[in-house]
């Protein structure tokens, strides 16, 4: 009788562990899914959705990151916490490379490339 009780406890324990592992697996995978980015429709430079090529294997417009990423990163209603493409591009020295630092004409050093910006734009 005691052996039977032990076996029942053993099976119950195995069942619990299996249930726990399964739950971990399921919720773990769901967690991975949640960790990935939300679906991203591809948009062209004009902001139009890019149609699936028909027939397959034909050319299609290259996607624009400004419109594709900007569809959410700029939608201040749905995603108010996200900065827009323009906000990021405006305030990025990696993007501007001096294009936002163009200075006035320097009559003392009037080379066309010499004094217009400290970065690539206007420095050459």
């Amino acid at each position, binding site marked *: 009788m005691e052996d039977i009780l032990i076996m029942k406890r053993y099976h119950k324990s195995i069942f619990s562990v299996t249930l726990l592992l399964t739950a971990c697996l399921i919720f773990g995978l769901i967690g991975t899914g949640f960790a990935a980015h939300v*679906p991203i429709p*591809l948009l062209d430079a004009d902001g139009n959705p890019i149609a*699936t090529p028909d027939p397959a294997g034909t050319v299609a417009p290259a996607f624009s990151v400004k419109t594709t990423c900007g569809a959410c990163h700029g939608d201040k209603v749905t995603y108010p916490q996200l900065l827009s493409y323009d906000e990021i591009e405006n305030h990025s020295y*990696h993007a501007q*490379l001096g294009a936002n630092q163009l200075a006035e004409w320097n009559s003392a050093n009037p080379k066309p490339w010499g004094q217009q910006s400290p970065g690539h734009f206007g420095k050459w």
Partner: protein
Amino acid sequence: MAHIFADVPGGVKFELGMEPFAYASEADFIDRVDLSVPGMMQDCAECHIGGGGMEYVPAPNLADRVPLRDFYATAVFDHLTTPQTGAYSAADYTAFNYFIDTYDVDNDGDLNEVQEADFAKLGVLEMDCMLCHLKGYEYVDRRDMLRAAKFDASRAVGAGVAEQNNVSFGTAGYGTSVYYNDQVVDNGGFLEFGSSILANLKATPPSDNCAFCHFNHGGVDWKKRGDNWKNDPNYDVHTVLGCMGCHEGKIGSEIGTSGDPNSSAIGQCDPAKGNAPYSSLWNANDNTMKTCADCHLKAGWDAGLGEYSNDFGAPDPTARHQALGLTAQLCQTAADGNVNASHLDILECTVCHVRKATTEAWNTGGAVVDATGPDAEGRLADHENEYVSRMMFDGTVTNLSYAWQNGKIYATNVLNTIFWRDKEPTFDANGDGQLDAMDALLMTDVLADDLAKGWTNIVKDNSGTVTNIEVGARIASLNAYLNTKWGVTNANVKLATLAVPFKVNHNVSPASYALGHDCADCHAPGEFFDRTYAMQGDGMNLTFDSTQVTPFTKLGGTTPTDFHPSLKDRAGTSIPLQVLSGNTTLRDIETGEMLYPPSASYTGADGNPYATRAAWVAYLNTVGGAVGQAVATIASIDNATNPGSPFEVGDAMDLTAGASAAGSTYYWTVQDAPGTLTGQTVTGYVLNNPGTFQVLLTVVGPKGDLKQQWAKITVVNKAAATTVDSIVANSGSATVTINLINLPAAADYDELYVRYGDGTWETIAYDGTDDNAQTVVRDYRLRDTYLNGTNYVYTTTVQVKNGGVVIETIKFKVTIPQ
């Protein structure tokens, strides 16, 4: 070089707007332009992300910028005809819609022709989010698209979701359409990224993506930093943190969106910046990244932000630095004899901690950029052939030099760009409209002459060994080319170099490699202050006649130098340093030449004057032992009680330190008891406990530096003299009398501590009789557990103690018949 915006007459400021400069004709454009905006997009953008001037025509107000896509559709500011009269067209030759075809986009073999950049056909370089945020991004594929001027396609191909089309240059869709692959999926008739792309989009850019442009990748880093570094924990102890561990903005940092270059707020997608000495790009963002001190000294705390950022558990090195004397006031903030700074006050951490101590092949720097001709990939200068690079470590010596920035010395690697320029003051050799004697030649002119002669760059063509013969041949050829091009007879081409001291601050080595463990690491001849620093590549031998070269510039209009003016002394004055001009080779330098002007006078910490750099460096090379530094040497540890014998409990110990600098203070700690002893010599320290202990000598020098040395001693109990004279035990009786003799004199012990071996113990006071004997009477516990045959047997221990200290210990057996 290109004239991008029209000159503004009458001093009218750019705030009113900027009008693209229009060249008179295609011929005028090709005469005066080597690199226009589309050319930058093809070439420079291999390491630049797009956006800014690669997406818009710049304007003072960012909101007023005209997209390059609309260059032919929207009126761009026209200063001379306000209101604006209309958009530009293909008939207008500007730096925005034409370029020199150095990458041969039409595959006709002509690299010096003009091509139109119709952005409706090419696309533009938007700021490519994927380049940083997509794990597995294909940098090389993107670069190939850029060189082909397929700008919109560069993002899709770089992301790995498409291949380029087969459309010819000049045809609609050339740079704007692609063949998508299975990394995108259909959703209701429209495309979206597949799951693999979504899963690989990372909020924090993977370090491998930073590596595209910032380390150990195709030599691109030599352009940015002058040397490579490797993402390997053996060569950078911070590798595990990833790039953003240090370059992510600190918690509480303001995130900017205004685009105002005077804003200190960092961009959300800009890594926080350090402080390059020669850079002036958006300097308001300088010093926004985590510094060594932020993590190692402040636990991540930023007082200005009032927040803790992650310090990654960085160890605080203060004690170690103090022990090495690096926090002691031994140095000067000015060489005026006023000793008012520590080594840490005047050295950036990287000076000692970036050692680059490996001979592995990746550990190279770009000694020379050869801009006398194209490289193997068609770029108009060669950063990376086998002759222009150099190893950063030769197995013994780290090949770095040093320079000042804001009163601190930083480690640097100098990158020399050799290039052609015209010295004739009456001849405008590059068509920039300015007559001066410093015209850098158009790179496309150099390319055209090289191609006509079958040359590439001069170092590569001559397998690294270049003499005045080869230099003279190229000068003659370029003079003839320019004379023909411009219809003159006085072209006067010279070779010049621009030496830029790049800041070296990656590859932080394990601390054991650091300088500063000994003064002589730096303060010795041939080390920090006068080590030979090579300016040429390991495979180079560039020689020439002194008449074939010219300085890069003249400081103050009079003093020639080949270095960027950012090479400054500690007070911030540019140091003139000629390494090519005035010489017949691109000469090696001594490291001290980058730190100290040759003719300045100095006053040492010893108060003595030094009239020249040479005298000053000679002084610095010997200064380590001359300024009263601490020395910690344990000269002897002696047994004063029994000289020459091992220590026993109760023995007295004498300690002697070797002499340190005058004014030093000596501290001793002996681990067997709390407390600190002072003095170069300590006598009569009584060892009260048995065991093995550390003896630590700490010496603080007169300037506050600290040195330590330790030794180990072992103390054993004294051999016991006390013996058992007799034990009186009767059969069946618990009472036992133990007579002890040969005990110490009465003055030397005050109690006995007895463990009877039957589970009981007691402390028995000295019996008051100074006869070296004492009797112990005890009723033992007669338990079966102690029964051995017919006797009860007990192992009894007696400790003779004085003042709580065990003087002797004896053990013996007590036997009681059953």
